C-alpha cells in the first residue's frame, strides 16, 4: 500500500538530564562502587554512549543488602496505611514525570516513544497506585490474619520493559513491608537510576529501596547473598534455571518469570480485522521483545490465505525508525547481542527450508534493527518454532480443529501466554480450559492490568505478579 509519509514529529529530549556517570543507589544515596569499575550504556537506536554505569561487585551487593536489612524492621512495622502513603506519593510523582521517564526509557531501550508514553509508564504508575491500595488491607488478602513480610528481597529485572518490570517488582514488595535490592538489566539501567530520584522526592526512608547496577556477576552475588530472603527474577529461562540451582537447599523463596513461545490462535469465525491487529500487536509490539509474545501463529487452515493477504497489507503500513518519533511503530532492537541472536535463529529458519517474508521498509544504518518478519512453511520440528526468538519474527502454522489447535499450542516447554480469536464463546471457553498457559487472552493480546495476575507454567517459570495472588510472593502466612 502506498502511504503518505508524515513529517518528523520527534519528541524533544530536553526534558531529560542524563548524568555522565552514575554510582550505586545504596542507603538513600548514590555512592561509588567498591569495584571502581564503570561500563557504558548506550542508545541502541544510534549507538551513542549515554552514560557510564557503576559495575557493582560482591562488596557492593553486600553493602546494599546490609542497608536493606537495617531499614527492614522500621519499614515492616510501619502501619500499612503509612506505607500506602509512600506508594501513592511515588505513583503521583511518577505520573507527573511521565514524559521524562518515557523519553529516557525510549533513549536507553530503543522502543518507540508511543509505547513508553502510552503503555510502559502508565502501566508502571498503575502498579504503584494499585499496590498502594493493598498496603493497609493485607489481612484481608487471604494470607492469614497477620501476614508478615519476608525481609530483604532481591529483584533482578530484564531489559525489555525496564520501568514496568521495576514497578511490578518494587510496588508489591514495598506494599507488603519488605525492603528491596533491585538490579536493573545491564543494557537498560537509566530509568531505574532516575527512579532513585523519585524515591528521594517521595521521602522514602534510606535503605528501603537500593538500586545496584551491573551484569550477570552482580546478579549472582545478589542471588547468593545469605541475608536475602527471596529472589524475584524476570529474564531468560537459562538464567532462571541457574538461579534455581543456586537457591536449592536454602530457605530463600523464589519466583521466576521466564521465556515463552506463545500461540496466537485464529479461528475462521474470528473478527478478522481485529484479529490481524492482534497478530501484529502480539508479535511486533516492543520489537517482539516480549516474554508473552504471540510468536507462534496458528491459523485455521481454511482461512490461511486470506489471513496472509491481510497481514501483509497491514504489516506494510508499519512505520520503522527513530524511536523518538511519535509516529514510529517499530523501534530498535535492544542490543547488538540480541540482534545477533535474532539473526542467527532467522538464518537457521531459512536454512531449514522455511519461507520468510519481511517488511521492506528501509532500516536506519546506525543502531540495531531488524525488519518485522514472518515465516511460513514451518513445522513443530523447526528450531524457530521451538526456540524463543525474542524479536519481531513470527512463525505461521495451520490447524483444522480446536483439538488440534490445543495440541499444537501446548507442544512447547514453555507456558506463558496464548491468544484465541473467535466470535464463539463456547469455543473460547473450551480452548482456555485446555491451553497450558499462565495467561490466555480472548479476542485481544498483550493486555495487562495490575489487578490481573501474570505468570507462567513449566519453563516459563512460577509465581504470579499482580492482583491478590501476586501479594503471596511477598508475604509469610502468619495466623494471629
Amino acid at each position, binding site marked *: 500500500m502506498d502511504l*503518505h509519509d508524515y*513529517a518528523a*514529529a520527534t519528541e524533544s529530549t530536553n526534558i531529560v538530564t542524563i548524568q555522565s556517570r552514575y554510582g550505586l543507589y545504596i542507603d538513600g544515596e548514590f555512592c561509588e562502587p567498591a569495584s571502581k569499575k564503570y561500563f557504558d550504556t548506550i542508545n541502541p537506536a544510534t549507538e551513542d554512549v549515554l552514560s557510564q554505569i557503576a559495575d557493582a561487585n560482591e562488596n557492593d551487593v553486600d553493602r546494599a543488602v546490609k542497608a536493606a536489612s537495617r531499614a527492614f524492621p522500621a519499614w515492616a512495622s510501619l502501619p500499612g496505611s503509612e506505607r500506602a502513603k509512600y506508594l501513592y506519593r511515588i505513583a503521583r510523582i511518577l505520573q507527573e514525570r511521565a514524559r521524562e521517564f518515557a523519553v529516557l526509557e525510549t533513549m536507553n531501550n530503543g522502543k518507540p516513544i508511543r509505547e513508553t508514553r502510552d503503555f510502559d509508564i502508565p502501566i508502571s504508575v498503575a502498579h504503584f497506585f494499585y499496590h498502594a491500595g493493598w498496603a493497609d488491607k493485607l489481612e484481608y488478602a487471604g494470607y492469614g490474619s497477620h501476614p508478615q513480610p519476608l525481609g530483604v528481597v532481591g529483584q533482578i529485572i530484564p531489559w525489555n520493559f525496564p520501568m514496568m518490570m521495576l514497578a511490578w517488582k518494587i510496588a508489591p514488595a514495598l506494599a507488603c513491608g519488605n525492603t528491596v535490592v533491585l538490579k536493573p538489566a545491564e543494557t537498560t539501567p537509566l530509568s531505574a537510576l532516575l527512579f532513585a530520584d523519585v524515591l528521594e522526592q517521595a521521602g522514602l526512608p534510606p535503605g528501603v529501596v537500593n538500586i545496584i547496577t551491573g551484569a550477570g556477576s552482580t546478579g549472582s552475588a545478589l542471588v547468593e547473598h545469605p541475608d536475602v530472603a527471596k529472589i524475584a527474577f524476570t529474564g531468560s529461562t537459562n538464567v532462571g534455571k541457574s538461579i534455581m540451582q543456586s537457591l536449592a537447599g536454602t530457605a530463600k523463596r523464589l519466583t521466576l518469570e521466564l521465556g515463552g513461545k506463545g500461540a496466537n490462535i485464529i479461528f475462521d*469465525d474470528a*473478527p*478478522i480485522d*481485529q484479529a490481524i*491487529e492482534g497478530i501484529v500487536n502480539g508479535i511486533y509490539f516492543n520489537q517482539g521483545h516480549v516474554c508473552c509474545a504471540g510468536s507462534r501463529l496458528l491459523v485455521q487452515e481454511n482461512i490461511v490465505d486470506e489471513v496472509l493477504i491481510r497481514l501483509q497489507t497491514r504489516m506494510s503500513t508499519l512505520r520503522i525508525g527513530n524511536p523518538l518519533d511519535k509516529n514510529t511503530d517499530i523501534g530498535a532492537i535492544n542490543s547488538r547481542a540480541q540482534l545477533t541472536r535474532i539473526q542467527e535463529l532467522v538464518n537457521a529458519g531459512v536454512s531449514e527450508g522455511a519461507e520468510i517474508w519481511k517488511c521492506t521498509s528501509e532500516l536506519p544504518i546506525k543502531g540495531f534493527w531488524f525488519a518485522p518478519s514472518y515465516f511460513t512453511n514451518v513445522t513443530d520440528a523447526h528450531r524457530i518454532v521451538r526456540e524463543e526468538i525474542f524479536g519481531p519474527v513470527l512463525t505461521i502454522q495451520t490447524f483444522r480443529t480446536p483439538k488440534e489447535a490445543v495440541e499444537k499450542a501446548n507442544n512447547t516447554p514453555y507456558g506463558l501466554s496464548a491468544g484465541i480469536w473467535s466470535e464463539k464463546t463456547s469455543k473460547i471457553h473450551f480452548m482456555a480450559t485446555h491451553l497450558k498457559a499462565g495467561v490466555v487472552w480472548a479476542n485481544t493480546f498483550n493486555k495487562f492490568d495490575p489487578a490481573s495476575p501474570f505468570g507462567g507454567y513449566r519453563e516459563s517459570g512460577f509465581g504470579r505478579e499482580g492482583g491478590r495472588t501476586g501479594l503471596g510472593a511477598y508475604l509469610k502466612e502468619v495466623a494471629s
Partner: protein
Amino acid sequence: MITGFDVAEVTRSDESLRKFLDSLPNIDKVGLEARAATLASRSIKTTSKQAFIDLAIRMIDLTTLEGMDTPEKIHTLCAKAMHPDPFDLAVPSVAAVCVYPDLVSLAKTHLRDSPVQVASVATAFPSGRSSLAIKLSDTKLAVEHGADEIDMVIDRGAFLAGHYYSILEEIVEVKGACGPAHLKVILETGELQTYDNIKKASWIAMLAGADFIKTSTGKVNPAATLPVVLEMLYAVRDWYRFTGEVIGMKPAGGIRSSKDALKLLVLVNETLGTAWLDPNRFRIGASTLLNDLLMQRHKLLNGNYSSSRYVTID
C-alpha cells in the same frame, strides 16, 4: 469469511443477501476502538499538517441543513465554498455545498461554473420515514434543480426490523432516480448502534450501487466517531479488493476541529492509502470545521492564531 463474491448472485433475493451478510466477519468492539485510538494518536506536524489541512479543505462538503436556512445564508455558503478565505485566494475551494432540495437551484446560481459541486439531501431526510414514491420524487426534485450529488438516508426502521432486502431495493431505486448525479448513502450509524449493524448496512449500500457511503445526517448523536469511520473504511477497502470498484466514504456529524479532520485523514491514509486521499474518494460533511481549518492554516503560515472574528460565521 468472504474471499470473493458475485454481486448479481448476492443481490438476487432476500435469502441470498441475508446469507451473504451473515458470512461477513464480525467486528470486535474493543479491538476496533483500540485500533482507532492508536491511529488517533498519530502526530501530524509541520509540512504534513499543512498538506493535510489543505486536503481537508478540498474534501469538505460545506453543509447547512437547518429549517432556518435563508437565501442569504446560501449565498454566503457558496461564496465561502469557492473562496474560503477572501484574503487569501491560495486557499483551495471546498468539494461541495450540501443543502436541502428546495435550495439547490439557488446554490447552483451562486456557484455558476465553479468546480464546487452541489449536493442535496433527499429521501425524506433526516428520518427516511416516508413512502418510496415520495423519496423518489424528492430525489428527482433535487436532480432536476441541478444537484450533482444526492445524499440519501436509509430507512433505519426497516433495517432494525431486519428488512435488509427492502433497503437494498430502495437504494437501487434512488440510484436510478439520480441519473448522472452521484449517490451517497447515509447509514445514520448513531441509530444502527452496533458495529455489526453498521458493517451490514455498509455492505448493503455498496451492493446496491452507492458511490459513497456516509456515516450520519448530523441530526443524531453519536455521529462520525473514529471507530465507525474506521470500520466503514474497512468495508470500502474490502469492496475494492474483491470488485476493483472504488467506493467513496464520507464521515459527517460532529467533526468540528482541525484535529478531528487530521485524525480522519490518518485513518484513511493507513487503511486505504494515498489513493483515497482525494476529494473524489473521501469527503467530510461539516459546517464549522472549515473555520477552524482556516484559522489553523493561518497560524501555520503566520505564526499566530487569529480570533474567530476573522472568519465568517456561516
